[in-house]
């Protein structure tokens, strides 16, 4: 029981650390391809800490709720993913649930962005939804053993 709770708490934290450093690594590699030096590896962490203490703006309730929904969807996807032999919520559904919970992240972001009046937001939403179509279709063949 205790180990299960620990797994549920630790796997999103682990995923956050890995994800943040992968983002830094991706930016570094992209910079090297562009023949630049690139930001340091911990740049996403610096950004996160800075944005946490920065005064932000909000266009309304959906603007905030969409972001929360998006991040919550990502964290729940992590709970369904296996880390080696650790897979906290494997008994509640399989790859099909992952396939559909992955939808929450782009959908939340789209809903949140939609509250602004900027025309670039609509372009971003349509791109994001089409991109997530591109992520999900190749995942489907994994359902076959």
């Amino acid at each position: 029981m205790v180990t299960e709770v620990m797994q549920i708490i630790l796997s999103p934290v682990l995923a956050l650390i890995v994800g943040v450093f992968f983002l830094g690594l991706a930016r570094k590699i992209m910079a090297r391809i562009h023949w630049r030096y690139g930001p340091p590896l911990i740049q996403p962490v610096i950004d996160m800490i800075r944005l946490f203490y920065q005064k932000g703006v909000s266009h309304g309730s959906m603007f905030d709720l969409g972001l929360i929904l998006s991040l919550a969807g990502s964290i729940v996807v992590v709970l369904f993913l296996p880390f080696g032999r650790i897979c906290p919520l494997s008994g509640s559904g399989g790859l099909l649930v992952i396939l559909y919970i992955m939808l929450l992240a782009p959908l939340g972001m789209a809903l949140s962005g939609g509250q602004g009046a900027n025309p670039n937001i609509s372009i971003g939403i349509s791109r994001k939804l089409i991109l997530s179509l591109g992520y999900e279709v190749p995942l489907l063949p994994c359902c076959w053993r």
Partner: protein
Amino acid sequence: MSVGAVQYRTGGERDLNSLGGLIKKIPIAFPGGLLGISGLIEIPLTNGFVSKWLIYKTLIVEGYPFLTFAALIGTWGTILSVYKFLHNMFLGQLPEKYKDVEKSPFSMQLPMIVLSLAILLFGILPGILLKVINTIGTSFGFESLNISLWGITSETGTLNTINIFFAVLVAAVLIWLLFRLGVKSVSVPQEDSYAAGAHIPKDKYHYTAEFYNPLYRMIKSFLRDMIDEFYYWIASSVQRLSDSVKRVYAGDVGYYVMYIILFLAFLIFVQLKWKPW
């Protein structure tokens, strides 16, 4: 119903591209529409997901890869189309002429609230409906499924919606608390935003028409309608054939006499050559 509420308050406006930004003006219609489309596009925790899960499981276990692929493509077509519909009505820039739209009357709000709650209830506790469906299935002689109030257990996979629900709920509450710890954000009006360094002009931009143009550009070459082309080819060739057949009826007696004489000559020729009669 939310479309009805919007149409009722905007004076029967049916053009989606001229609407927008009505989320704060017609408040209940937006969550109602959002939950409605979530049920349609089978987001987990809404009623559509359980049926979709059963369909996918059946297709995978029975081994129909192309049908599964078709189901996924169909789902994505639904997602893209209904999201555009929701975005065009409730999100985006609010046009000047709808600044003073009133909210919908209570008699329109109540059915939306009830049906939204039903979508969530049957999504989180699908066993209520699945039990009824299971008794119908067993009465037709199918095998009984192992159904609990919050999911399905079978040898090919289990689904437990209440765990998913609590996972999403706890994650959302934790993130909300984390956001509360940060510096509080300032609420600004929707137009307080910049594009390429310039202020957004009011009522100038409402980029909702041709929402999925990049996708259309990508798949346009695959969308050549071969079946339609085949039908058009059949239609035009039948028409050409009938036109040539129509020339037989010339409307002149001389031609008909000629046809009769030619036919008799043909019969005489056949009789002389092969002697069948």
